[in-house]
C-alpha cells in the first residue's frame, strides 16, 4: 500500500482537517480580494473574461492589427437593436412605432456615465445609427440638394411615417442596415466605449423599451451582447449545472453502494479538488474564461472516477474481511498502481494542451492536469481516511447483502457482466470484425467532420439572443460584421517624393527649386512640406508675386500628392465596386458598405437623383468634389470609417448573415479568388479584421493545436503504458479502447453533422484521460488474475466479476451524472455533457468487449510474449 494512504489510515482526522483547511484557505484566497479589493491587495480578485477574442494572445498579430484598424477608422463595438412589428401592415413605419424608435434613439445617445478612472463610459452618441441621428441626402426642388436628419422629429401621419422608409431605402448605406428591405423593420446600431459595458447599456435600453406600448418587438443582439450575456449565464451554469451533476452522481452512487455515509467521500474528493484547482487558478491571477469555467466540470468525473474504483472494490471485498483496515489495505494494494497510472495518463493528456498556441486552452490544460494530480492525492488519502472515520458498526452489512457470488450473480448488472465475459470469449472474432466495420464507418464520419464555430451559437436555440439573431438576419443584410482593408502594395510615400521632385524640376521656378532643395530634410512628408510653404508665405506678406508663386508650388505638391490618394481614383473605386458585387455572389454576404457607395449616392443626388447618375464619376477631381459635398452633412466624419484622410487605404464593411466560421472562411476565399482573377489597376494588398474574422483565426489555431497536442499526448501515454505493463504489445493493447472511442466520437460528430467547435475539440483530451483509465484497470487486473488462473478462458470469469463491475459502475455513475448538463442553456456545456456520457459509454463498452476479444484471439501471443 502507498505510504500516503497508510499515513491517512493511521491519522484520518488530521488528513480530513488538513483538507478542510486547504479548501478554506483557497476559498478565502478567492473571496477576500474579490469582496474586499481595497483591503486585500496582495491577491488578485476574481475576474471573468468572456471575450472570445482572448482565445488569442493580446500580442497576436491579427488582434494587434484589428485594434489598430479599429482605432484608425474610429470603429466601435456595437449593440444592435432590432425593432419588428408583425401586426401593423406597415411594420414599424407607423407614427406610434416611429415615436418609440425616435425616443429610444435619442435616449440611447445620452447613455453615458463616469467610469472608474474618470473617463466617460457608455454610448458614443454622435456615432449612433438611428433614424434621428443619420443624414438623408435628397432632392429639394429645383436644382437643390438637401442634407437633413432622416427623422428629425417623429412623424405625425402615416404618410410621413412611410416617407421615412422611402428616404432610407433610397440610400444604399441605410437600406438593409437601418431599414429592412421589406419595409417592415428597423435596426439601430449603438456603438459603445467598450465591450464590457454592453450588458449595462442593454439593460438601460430594456428599461426604456419596457415603458413603450404597442405591438413592436425589440430584439437586442450583437457580438458584445452575446459575450456579456454568456459571462452572466456561465456563472449560472457553474452554480447550477455542475452541482446538479454532482447530485445525480451522488444518487447513482447511493444506488450502487447503498451507504450515504460512504459515498460522501468521493464527493469530498471532487469538491476539494475543484476548490483547490479553481482557487489556485484565481489566486495566480488567471481570469475565469469560457474555457477555464469548464474546469470544474472536467475535474469532477475524473476525481470521482478513482474514488468509485476504491469504493467498488471496497464494497465487494468488505464482506470477505469484515474489517475496515484490512479491506482498505487490500483495496489500495490492488488499486494504487493502476490509479497512479490512470492519473498520470490523464494529467499527461490535459497537460499536453500547454503546447497549443491558444492561451486559454493552455491554462485549461495545465490546471486540469493539476486538478487531476490533486484528485489523485485526495483520493488515495481522503477516501481511506474517511472510511477509517466511519465506525465499523455503520459498515455493518455493507456490501454483504449484495455480495456477489461470482458464480451466481444477483444484481442485473452483475448478471449482465457475468454473461458478457464468456460471450466475448466465444464471439471474439465477430466482436473484432464488428469493431473493424464500425471503425471504417467512423473513418468515413471523420472525413465528413466540418470544422466550424460561432459564439452566438453557444446559446441554445430559443435563447433570446439566438431568436434576435434569427429575426434580424432574416430581415436585414446581416448582423455579423467583417472588415476588409485594401491598400497599395507599393510605397506611396516614396513615389510621391519622386513625382514631386520631378514636377518641381520641370516647373523650374525659384520657389519650386527652393522646395526641391528642401525635400530631403522635409523627409517627403506632406504635412512638413505644407508647413514649409505656409511659413514661406507668412514671411512674405508684402511681396504678392512671391506669395502667389508659392501658391502655385503648393498646387504642384497637391497634384503630386493626389497620385497617392489612390482611392479617389475612379478606376480604383470601380475595382472596389466590382469586388463588392462579387462578394454578393457568395450568397453569404448580405451587403457591403464602402467608399464607392458614398460617392455614387452623392453623385446621384447631385444629378437630380436620377438612377443613371448612380455611378462613379469619371475623373479624380469629380470624385474629390463629390466627397467634399458629402462632407457638408451632419456626419462628415462617417467618411473616415471607410477611408483614411489620405485615401491611401480603404475599408469595406461586409455584413454577413451568419457568424459561422465556415461562412467567413468562404468569404475570405472568395476575396482571394477575386483578387487573383482580377488584378487591380494599382496593385493592392489586403487584410481582414473584425470579430467575425478573428474567430476564424483562433479556430484554425485551435484545430491544428489540438491535433498536435492530442498526437503528442497519445505518444506519451503509449510510452507510459509500455512502461507500466513492461510490454510493447500490452501497452499498444491499452490504447485500443481510447483509439476506438475517439474514432467513434468524432465519427459520430462527422456523421450527424455537428460542428467541430471549441468544446468538441477539447473532448479529445478528455477521451484520452478517461478511456485509457478503464483499459489500465481492466488490463492490470486481467494480468493479475491470469497469473493465478492461467488460461484466459478461466481468467475471464474473474475479470468480469469485481473489476468489470467497477468499470461498469463507473460508466453508469459518471456517464449518467453528466446528463444534466444537456439541459443547460449554453451549448458548450450541453456538448460537453452529452459527449462526456458518450465517451464514457464507448470507452466502457470498448474496454469490456473489444479488449477481452483481442486477448482471446491473441492469447498465445500476448501471454507468451510476456513470459519470454
Amino acid at each position, binding site marked *: 500500500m502507498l505510504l500516503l494512504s497508510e499515513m491517512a489510515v493511521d491519522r484520518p482526522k488530521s488528513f480530513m482537517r488538513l483538507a478542510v483547511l486547504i479548501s478554506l484557505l483557497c476559498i478565502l484566497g478567492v473571496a477576500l480580494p474579490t469582496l474586499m479589493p481595497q483591503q486585500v491587495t496582495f491577491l488578485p480578485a476574481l475576474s471573468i473574461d468572456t471575450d472570445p477574442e482572448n482565445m488569442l494572445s493580446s500580442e497576436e498579430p491579427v488582434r494587434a492589427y484589428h485594434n489598430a484598424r479599429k*482605432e*484608425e477608422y*474610429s470603429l466601435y463595438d456595437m449593440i444592435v437593436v432590432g425593432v419588428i412589428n408583425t401586426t401593423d401592415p406597415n411594420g414599424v413605419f407607423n407614427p406610434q412605432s416611429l415615436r418609440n424608435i425616435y425616443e429610444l434613439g435619442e435616449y440611447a445617445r*445620452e447613455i*453615458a456615465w463616469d467610469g472608474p478612472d474618470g473617463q466617460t463610459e457608455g454610448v*458614443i*452618441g*454622435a456615432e449612433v445609427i438611428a433614424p434621428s441621428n443619420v443624414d438623408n441626402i435628397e432632392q*429639394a*426642388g*429645383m*436644382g*437643390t*440638394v*438637401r*442634407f*437633413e*436628419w432622416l427623422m*428629425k*422629429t417623429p412623424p405625425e401621419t402615416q404618410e410621413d411615417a412611410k416617407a421615412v422608409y422611402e428616404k432610407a431605402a433610397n440610400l444604399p448605406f441605410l437600406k438593409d442596415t437601418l431599414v429592412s428591405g421589406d419595409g417592415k423593420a428597423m435596426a439601430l446600431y449603438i456603438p459603445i466605449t467598450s465591450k464590457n459595458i454592453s450588458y449595462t447599456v442593454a439593460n438601460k435600453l430594456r428599461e426604456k423599451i419596457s415603458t413603450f406600448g404597442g405591438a413592436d418587438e425589440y430584439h437586442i443582439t450583437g457580438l458584445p451582447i452575446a459575450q456579456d450575456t454568456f459571462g452572466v449565464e456561465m456563472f449560472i451554469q457553474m452554480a447550477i449545472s455542475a452541482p446538479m451533476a454532482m447530485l445525480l452522481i451522488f444518487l447513482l452512487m447511493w444506488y450502487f453502494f447503498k451507504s450515504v455515509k460512504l459515498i460522501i467521500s468521493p464527493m469530498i474528493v471532487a469538491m476539494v479538488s475543484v476548490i483547490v484547482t479553481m482557487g489556485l487558478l484565481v489566486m495566480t491571477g488567471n481570469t475565469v474564461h469560457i474555457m477555464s469555467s469548464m474546469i470544474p466540470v472536467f475535474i469532477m468525473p475524473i476525481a470521482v472516477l478513482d474514488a468509485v474504483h476504491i469504493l467498488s472494490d471496497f464494497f465487494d471485498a468488505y464482506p470477505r474481511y469484515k474489517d475496515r483496515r484490512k479491506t482498505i489495505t487490500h483495496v489500495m494494494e490492488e488499486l494504487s498502481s493502476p490509479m497512479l497510472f490512470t492519473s498520470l495518463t490523464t494529467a499527461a493528456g490535459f497537460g499536453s494542451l500547454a503546447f497549443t498556441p491558444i492561451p486559454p486552452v493552455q491554462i485549461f490544460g495545465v490546471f486540469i492536469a493539476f486538478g487531476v494530480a490533486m484528485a489523485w492525492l485526495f483520493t488515495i488519502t481522503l477516501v481511506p481516511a474517511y472510511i477509517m472515520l466511519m465506525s465499523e458498526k455503520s459498515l455493518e452489512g455493507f456490501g454483504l447483502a449484495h455480495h456477489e457470488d461470482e458464480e451466481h450473480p444477483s444484481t442485473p448488472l452483475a448478471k449482465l457482466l457475468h454473461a458478457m465475459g464468456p460471450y466475448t470469449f466465444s464471439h471474439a472474432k465477430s466482436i473484432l470484425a464488428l469493431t473493424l466495420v464500425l471503425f471504417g464507418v467512423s473513418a468515413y464520419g471523420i472525413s465528413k467532420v466540418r470544422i466550424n464555430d460561432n459564439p452566438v451559437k453557444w446559446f441554445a436555440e430559443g435563447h433570446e439572443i439566438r431568436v434576435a439573431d434569427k429575426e434580424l438576419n432574416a430581415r436585414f443584410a446581416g448582423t455579423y460584421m467583417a472588415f476588409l482593408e485594401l491598400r497599395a502594395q507599393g510605397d506611396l510615400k516614396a513615389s510621391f517624393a519622386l513625382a514631386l521632385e520631378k514636377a518641381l524640376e520641370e516647373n523650374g521656378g525659384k520657389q519650386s527649386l527652393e522646395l526641391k532643395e528642401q525635400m530631403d530634410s522635409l523627409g517627403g512628408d506632406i*504635412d512638413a512640406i*505644407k508647413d514649409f510653404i*505656409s511659413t514661406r508665405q*507668412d514671411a512674405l*506678406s508684402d511681396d*504678392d508675386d512671391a*506669395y*502667389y508663386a508659392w501658391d502655385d508650388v*503648393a*498646387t504642384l505638391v*497637391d*497634384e503630386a500628392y*493626389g497620385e497617392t*490618394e489612390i482611392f*479617389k481614383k475612379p478606376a480604383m473605386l470601380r475595382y472596389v465596386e466590382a469586388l463588392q458585387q462579387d462578394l454578393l455572389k457568395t450568397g453569404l454576404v448580405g451587403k457591403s458598405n464602402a467608399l464607392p457607395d458614398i460617392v455614387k449616392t452623392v*453623385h446621384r443626388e*447631385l*444629378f437630380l437623383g436620377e438612377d443613371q447618375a448612380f455611378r462613379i*464619376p469619371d*475623373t*479624380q*477631381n*469629380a*470624385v*474629390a*468634389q*463629390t466627397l*467634399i*459635398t458629402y*462632407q*457638408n*452633412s*451632419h*456626419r*462628415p*466624419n462617417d*467618411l473616415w470609417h471607410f477611408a*483614411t*484622410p*489620405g485615401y491611401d487605404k480603404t475599408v469595406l464593411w461586409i455584413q454577413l448573415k451568419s457568424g459561422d466560421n465556415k461562412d467567413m472562411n468562404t468569404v475570405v476565399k472568395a476575396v482571394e479568388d477575386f483578387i487573383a482573377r482580377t488584378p487591380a489597376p494599382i496593385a493592392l494588398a489586403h487584410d481582414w479584421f473584425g470579430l467575425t474574422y478573428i474567430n476564424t483565426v483562433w479556430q484554425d489555431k485551435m484545430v491544428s493545436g489540438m491535433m498536435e497536442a492530442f498526437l503528442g499526448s497519445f505518444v506519451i501515454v503509449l510510452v507510459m503504458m509500455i512502461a507500466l505493463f513492461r510490454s510493447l504489445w500490452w501497452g499498444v493493447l491499452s490504447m485500443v479502447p481510447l483509439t476506438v472511442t475517439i474514432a467513434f466520437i468524432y465519427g459520430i460528430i462527422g456523421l450527424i453533422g455537428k460542428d467541430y467547435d471549441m468544446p468538441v475539440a477539447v473532448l479529445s483530451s478528455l477521451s484520452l484521460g478517461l478511456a485509457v483509465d478503464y483499459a489500465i484497470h481492466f488490463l492490470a487486473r486481467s494480468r493479475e488474475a491470469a497469473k493465478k488462473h492461467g488460461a484466459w478462458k478461466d481468467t475471464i470469469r474473474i475479470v468480469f466479476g469485481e473489476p468489470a463491475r467497477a468499470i461498469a459502475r463507473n460508466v453508469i455513475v459518471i456517464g449518467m451524472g453528466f446528463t444534466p448538463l444537456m439541459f443547460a442553456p449554453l451549448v458548450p456545456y450541453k456538448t460537453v455533457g452529452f459527449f462526456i456520457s458518450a465517451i464514457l459509454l464507448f470507452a466502457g463498452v470498448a474496454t469490456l468487449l473489444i479488449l477481452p476479444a483481442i486477448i482471446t484471439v491473441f492469447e498465445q501471443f500476448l501471454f507468451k510474449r510476456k513470459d519470454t
Partner: protein
Amino acid sequence: MRKFLLSLSLPLFVTFPALAMDVSEIVAKANHAAYYQGEDGRARVKMVITDKQGRKRTRDFTILRKDTKSGDSDQKFYVYFNRPADVSKTVFMVWKHVKADDDRWLYLPALDLVKRIAATDERTSFVGSDFFYEDVSGRNTTEDTHTLLETSDNYYVVKSTPKKADLVEFSFYKSYIHKTSFIPVKIEFFDKRGEKYREAAAEKVETIQENQTVTQGSMTDLRSGSKTVLTYSGVQYDIGLPDDIFTERYLRTPPTDYLKK
C-alpha cells in the same frame, strides 16, 4: 474694521456701471465684432483639421463678404477654394438672410455643376471641418434668449439658450465676450447632459484697418478630439466689392481680380 468694509465694497461699486450694460446690447456688439466689421472684406483662409490621431487635412480658400443691408443684417459670402488641388475652383456662395432661410449655392467645376443647397438646417459641417455653417456665417441673435451670467475683469459671460431647442444639438452655449473689443474670445457649447462638448476660441486678434480682427480661430469637438484651426491672412476691409460678383454667373467664372490682393 471700517476700512476693511470699505475696501470690500469698493470693487463692487466700481463694476456696477458695467453690469448696467444691457445683455442684448452686449450680444449685438459681439455679433457686429464677429461678422460685420467694415462694409465688405476679403481674407485668405487656411483651414487645418487635425483629428484625434493627429492626421491633418488642409483646405485653402479665399472668402469675400459684402453686407447688403445696413444694421448688421443681410450679407453675401463668396468662398473660393484654392486647394486641395482636386477641389480647386470649387465655390460656395451664401446669401445670408436674417429674416428668412439663407440661400446657398455650390459650384463643382469637375462636374460642371451649380447646385443649390437647401439650408433648412445650418448645423451641418462646413466642408468637413469642426465648424458648422452657422459658425461661419453667424447664428441669428434672435434665435436664442441671452442672459448675462457674469462680468469679470475682461469678459462678459453670456449664456444663450435656444428658443426652439429641437432644432439644435446643444442645450445652451456660453460666450466669453471681450469687454472692450466685444470679440467673443471663447464660446462653449453644452449638451443635454450639461456637459461641454464643443469649444470655439479666438486664438489671435490683430487690428486691421482699425478693426479688431480674429486672424486665428479654432473649433474643437471635445467628443471626437478633432480640432479645426482657421488662419486668416491678407485681410482687407472696405475694398468696394461690386454686388454682381455674388451671383450664379460668377460661380463658373470667378472674379479673379477681387480674389487676389
